[in-house]
């Protein structure tokens, strides 16, 4: 298995600060300077009030699993050795949801509502992916 063969995120200028912060092991979210709400995925404007000015602020890194799946089919050769592997959506404490994976927990203990904390996957060159661990 080759980590380098795994797909990398395709980014846009709107989301670049999100990925830049991850490389420094920080999770940040775009907040609207007008209405104060945060959102994901990072967009060009505030999706709630349509204001232009967004600010990047640190997120707590805490959240809960809002849904999950375990992939059993080999779709990507680069993931074959990890089958069955999990993919989750995490509802961050701040509200927006992030797709990621959970490490440090057997797949059969995944559940909706599981408290998790941020962790960082630095195995792929040039990009750090957010991942989560069960909250201590």
């Amino acid at each position, binding site marked *: 298995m080759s980590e380098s063969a*795994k797909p990398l995120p395709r980014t846009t200028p709107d989301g670049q600060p999100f990925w830049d912060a991850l490389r420094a092991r920080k999770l940040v979210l775009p907040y609207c300077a007008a209405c104060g709400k945060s959102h994901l995925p990072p967009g060009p404007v505030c999706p709630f009030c349509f204001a232009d000015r967004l600010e990047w602020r640190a997120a707590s890194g805490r959240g809960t699993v809002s*849904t999950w799946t375990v992939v*059993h*089919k080999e779709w*990507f050769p680069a993931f074959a050795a990890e089958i069955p*592997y999990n993919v989750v959506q995490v509802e961050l404490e701040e509200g927006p*949801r992030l797709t*990621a994976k959970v490490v440090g927990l057997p797949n059969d203990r995944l559940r*909706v509502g599981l408290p998790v904390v941020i962790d960082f996957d630095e195995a792929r060159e040039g990009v750090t992916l957010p991942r989560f661990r069960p909250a201590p």
Partner: protein
Amino acid sequence: MVSSIRDQTAIAGIGQSEYGRFLPDSQLKLGAKALKAALEDAGLERSDVDGVAIHLGWPLGVDYDRVAEAYGLDVRWVSQTWLHGRFVTSAIQQAAMAVACGLANVVACITAISFTRERQILGGPGDAEGTREDGGTHAESPPYGLTSPAGGAALGMQRYMALYGATSAQLAAVPIAFRKHALKSPYAVMKKPLTLHEHQASRMVVDPLRLFDCCLITDGAAVALVTSAERARDLKQRPVYIAGMQGLRSGRDEFIFATRGLGINQQPARRSPPDERDLAAYRMAGIDRKDVAGLYTYDAFSPVALFVLERFGFCGPGEAATWVQGGRIELGGELPMNTSGGLLSEAHVAGWNSILEIVRQLRGTAGERQIPNARYLQWATPWSDSVIFRN
């Protein structure tokens, strides 16, 4: 407000190719067979077709211009959606609107698929759609190995099961019902019954979806000819009128494989019964939900059948997994669904096999699948778009 489009247009002809796996014919050849059959069915000539609403195109096939060129059409109106369940309704709606607005007299809605040749785009490294910026439209996230529409359907069903206690064995009622229907369809790819045991023993694909919760990957083509109600009455077949419609809803409250408020992607986690916008098609058709004799949906995955029932209020939020038990969605039940077997068991012709089935039902030519006295049938999806047909 402009006048209603209710009953102003109709499907006057239907045609299809054979459905199967690894068919030798090209996608365009399958489409040609279906178009010829539809013209013969309606009693129309190729030259009568002056509009096309094609439901194929890149990345799963050629575009409208090659279709028109290949079939020697000379059309004055075109609509092209790409091949997704969410755009079945859009294609029919646009065809009906084009006819009602005088932009075309006869619109051929053309779908042709060679999925078995193109399957590499349905997930994995070849899935260009799922690899777009910010992920795919079904929650694909290739950096984590989540690909294919199946992944999004799994995320939706997993949360639904956690919230309401629904089980895989309950979900099995959907593919089992549709398999029973397919056994009565001469066009169906699947020829053997499906038991609960077989469903539960089938391999897990993407938890909680098992093999038999995922639709077929097949080849085939289907064509429906839309024209004015007036003209349809002068043609060979009993017209099937487009009585009511409503569009595709979109926004942060929506996710393609969830009902509103289920809490997938950025949806608020707040379920509620259908609102006025969700029921507009009934009002346009001048009917109540109870007048619907059968429901047809884009059953790419079993959970879609549950979600559409809740979206349109056939049952309450969280009730569908229980509601579908006991033959309720089977022929002879309270609300037969996908009576020719749908994508799960007849064939994956992008939902158009079910549109053709609706037409056969409303003509009264569905044979042993016939819903007695069917007057109104509904096409609908969990993402709220719908067309109500009547005879």
